[in-house]
């Protein structure tokens, strides 16, 4: 067995490439030990500011639609736009080069610099040049490269890869930067505050700006019609890079090209608001170089004429364009909202949740598209919690991209007899039987749940046995510290069948409901399901419980997309008559509701039926609220908090996917209307995220993510007055129990207990 390296001895560069699983696991240990506090602070600050900034954009949704449309058109029309752009650049007096590969781009830039006898080049922030490893090539040719963005400067000093796509050194705390500079520079200057560090770096870099013969920048967007580039920054280093030296080279991916300069207006406000949460950054430059103003000539140097080169990089992007999944990543405008709204990313950052260049939820597609598929292994850290989905300014369904990457990685594995047999027995689609046993175990959860419920006595006592726990960890990678849910003696559907004669639906004018017996509630928490039926009937709804079929969520999250499609097809066939009879669909488990609200669209042909499902599916508490708002139900009379046997002070945590579905606020409204005092969590995700937290490889990360939620509970109880914990998601319950060892209630159970 490989020796376990002490996390403090792991260098980020050593674990940048995650094609080996060991690198991913080591990177998680290293980041949790060293980088997590700074990453958390910085990403969560961006995330909070982003929510405030986008709320101030009056037409945020329309801007997103427009941005998406522009990018879709631009990528579709890319070959023509590149031609047009070349003409524009040449007309402006610049040079244009379309580089097929990273090596070609580097060779071109080196040649231009050598021809101009450049000794020192200043660089503005450019992640594309990180992708091509440009510095390495230039330094090999004897050209000194000065990274002038302060974050890139830190990385250059530390020799590390970026950990974030817009703030590449955000894994460094001020204290760690001080220690790094003291170690690397021979200086007596005080370096103990942000100001002192900035002053130190500024003075070093000011000399470089003045001396530099050439500047290399990236480009946030490029307009084909005019050859204009948009550059977004706050430090001023990009302006220095593009303004002072006579020779300016801009390098960018071909996906940055959009048809017209006039369209910059759509992205101008959307990008900074989605990125750092600023209305605008300090500087947004709109240039169509070469500039006509004279360049800066250092004292004693002669003024040179200006020259501009635009280097556009393909490096796999044309292939991505032909790929229906990876093509989506080409729409990305690199704002980082998907990183900052991701609980896993907020906890470990891009040195774990990232590859050699790109990081976060969108990063997997980029690493796979510009490199090798297995380099995207870190996409395993995307739990499909979906918090990024509504934050993406170009509406990329990032979890779907990662589920596809996972599928491709599953398929890339050599299959084995054990995997095939296991898959066949448990319900995997033929194409998915090459997936690792762990994935097939979680993907076919409903099969185990059905077996477990049939033999509840035996299976539950087995789950308690340390021997079984150890076997589960060895075979399926289920962490032994987790408690697997117990199986009930009777499923929800069975319970309901038995109790049917006691609970008939009232005949009212409220809409009729079909309550979907999702497998998680059916085989895990049948009593909760029964509570949902009683509460909805109490509100006056006619409720019919459907049969229980798997919905596709579990295999989808494991990248077993064919299996998910099979499950979804069978479920939809079963549900169609309910829907066609005009019943609204109610789903207790939020991760399943999210299937109806958005994920199923990827798994079904009939998009009209999907749109129908999306519009008629609800979380139970949404319908309770609807009954009070539209049908005159008096909540405080029907569900009076005074009847609650516990403290009426609650702490409520809504489920990540429930919030993405906009199906969480009604729970809070209902509980408050009943008379409860409700404090809510503000974390993006509890860290359990379905099967993710059960996996032994990710247990520590999952618990570290959960710590944010646990500490919010503690903060809400700081006057030593405990609150009753309430949560809507099954996995949130498990996570809160694991972290706080306190019981958690479901909102429908609360209402059921106090109903008059």
């Amino acid at each position, binding site marked *: 067995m490989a020796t376990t390296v002490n996390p403090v001895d792991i260098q980020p560069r050593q674990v940048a490439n995650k094609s080996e699983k060991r690198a991913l696991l080591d990177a998680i240990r290293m980041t949790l030990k060293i980088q997590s506090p700074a990453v958390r602070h910085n990403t969560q600050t961006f995330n909070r500011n982003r929510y405030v900034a986008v709320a101030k954009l009056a037409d945020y949704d329309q801007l997103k639609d427009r941005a998406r449309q522009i990018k879709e058109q631009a990528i579709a029309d890319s070959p023509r736009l590149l031609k047009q752009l070349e003409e524009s650049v040449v007309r402006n007096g610049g040079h244009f080069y379309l580089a097929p590969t990273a090596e070609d781009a580097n060779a071109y830039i080196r040649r231009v610099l050598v021809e101009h006898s450049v000794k020192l080049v200043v660089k503005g922030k450019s992640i594309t040049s990180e992708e091509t490893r440009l510095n390495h090539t230039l330094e090999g040719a004897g050209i000194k490269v000065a990274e002038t963005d302060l974050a890139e400067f830190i990385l250059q000093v530390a020799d590390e890869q970026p950990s974030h796509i817009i703030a590449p050194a955000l894994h460094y*705390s001020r204290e760690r*930067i001080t220690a790094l500079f003291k170690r690397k520079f021979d200086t007596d200057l005080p370096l103990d505050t942000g100001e002192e560090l900035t002053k130190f770096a*500024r003075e070093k870099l000011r000399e470089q700006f003045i001396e530099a013969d050439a500047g290399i920048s990236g480009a946030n967007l490029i307009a084909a019609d005019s050859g204009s580039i948009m550059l977004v920054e*706050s*430090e001023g280093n990009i302006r220095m890079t593009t303004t002072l030296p006579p020779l300016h080279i801009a390098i960018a991916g071909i996906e940055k090209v959009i048809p017209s300069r006039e369209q910059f207006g759509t992205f101008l406000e959307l990008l900074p608001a989605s990125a750092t949460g600023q209305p*605008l950054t300090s500087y947004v430059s709109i240039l169509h170089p070469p500039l*006509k*103003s004279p360049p800066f000539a250092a004292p004693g*140097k002669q003024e040179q004429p200006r020259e501009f080169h635009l280097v556009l990089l393909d490096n796999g992007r044309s292939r991505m364009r032909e790929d229906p999944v990876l093509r989506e990543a080409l729409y990305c405008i690199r704002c980082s909202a998907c990183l900052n709204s991701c609980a896993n990313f907020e906890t470990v950052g891009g040195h774990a949740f990232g590859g050699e260049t790109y990081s976060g939820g969108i990063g997997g597609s980029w690493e796979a598209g510009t490199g090798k598929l297995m380099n995207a292994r870190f996409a395993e850290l995307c739990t499909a919690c979906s918090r990024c989905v509504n934050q993406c300014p170009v509406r990329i369904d990032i979890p779907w991209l990662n589920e596809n990457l996972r599928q491709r990685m599953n398929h890339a594995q050599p299959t084995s007899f054990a995997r095939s047999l296991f898959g066949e027995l448990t319900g995997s689609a033929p194409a998915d039987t090459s997936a690792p046993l762990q994935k097939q175990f979680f993907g076919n959860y409903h099969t185990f749940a059905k077996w477990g419920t049939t033999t509840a006595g035996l299976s539950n006592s087995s789950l308690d046995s340390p021997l079984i726990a150890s076997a589960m960890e060895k075979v399926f990678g289920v962490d032994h510290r987790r408690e697997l849910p117990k199986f009930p003696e009777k499923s929800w559907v069975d319970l309901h069948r038995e109790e049917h004669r006691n609970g008939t639906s009232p005949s009212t004018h409220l809409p009729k409901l079909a309550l979907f017996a999702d497998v998680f509630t059916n085989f895990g928490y049948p009593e909760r399901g029964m509570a949902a039926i009683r509460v909805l009937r109490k509100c006056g709804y006619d409720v019919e419980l459907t049969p229980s079929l798997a919905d596709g969520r579990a295999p989808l999250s494991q990248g077993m997309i064919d299996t998910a499609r099979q499950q979804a097809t069978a479920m939809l066939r079963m549900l169609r008559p309910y829907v066609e009879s005009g019943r609204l669909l109610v789903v207790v488990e939020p991760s399943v509701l999210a299937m109806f609200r958005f994920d199923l669209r990827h798994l079904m042909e009939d998009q009209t039926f999907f749109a129908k499902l999306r519009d008629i599916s609800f979380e139970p508490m949404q319908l309770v609220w609807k009954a009070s708002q539209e049908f005159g139900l008096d909540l405080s009379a029907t569900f009076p908090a005074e009847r609650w046997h516990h403290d009426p002070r609650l702490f409520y945590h809504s489920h990540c996917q429930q919030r993405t579905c906009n199906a969480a606020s009604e729970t809070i409204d209902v509980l408050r209307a009943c008379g409860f005092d409700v404090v809510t969590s503000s974390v993006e995700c509890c860290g359990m995220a379905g099967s993710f937290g059960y996996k032994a490889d990710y247990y520590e990360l999952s618990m570290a993510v959960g710590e944010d939620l646990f500490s919010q509970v503690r903060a809400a109880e700081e006057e030593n007055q405990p609150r009753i914990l309430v949560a809507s998601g099954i996995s949130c319950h498990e996570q809160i129990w694991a972290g706080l060892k306190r019981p958690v209630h479901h909102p429908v159970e609360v209402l059921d207990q106090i109903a008059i």
Partner: protein
Amino acid sequence: MASPAIDAPSMLLEQFVTAARNAAATAEVVDRNPQALADAILAKAGDAHCILFAPPQVMPAELFAQFAADPRVITQPDSEQMVHSAVGVIEAFGGVARTGSVCVDVNYQRTGVVSLITPLCIAVLASENIVPQPRDLFRQDLLHGAGLTRDFVFITGPSATADMGPLVRGVHGPHRQHIIVVR
């Protein structure tokens, strides 16, 4: 009765000044005459030994004449003077009410360098050139479509970074951004 056509610019001006201050710039509104403008600029420049000045492109040169007559003002700086001056004075051809940004043509003579290289940058903006939102710079019907053709920069407050831990103002660009709106 006040018509919206008259009210709107003054509302934009008010919004602009508030937004500029929120973006950590300083802003003041002065009357449009050479004396008032010179007083405002020189008061802000304090005892700077030399003041870089990029002459205006849109506003009349006479408006700046009194300021430009100050012996410390340099319009054709050599590189030493550029590197060591404490104050740069530039014209902004547009302003943005929602963000407090000034739009500066970086292609016109030395305006780009002057707006960037000194610790204090003073931008002079005509009140009628304030538009509501950043995206308005990409409209043909506002500012005579200047934003669609020029090489320019939206400057929103002083240069800043959070890369060294806490937010620090004053990195490679100016540490202080002052805006004088002439009405």
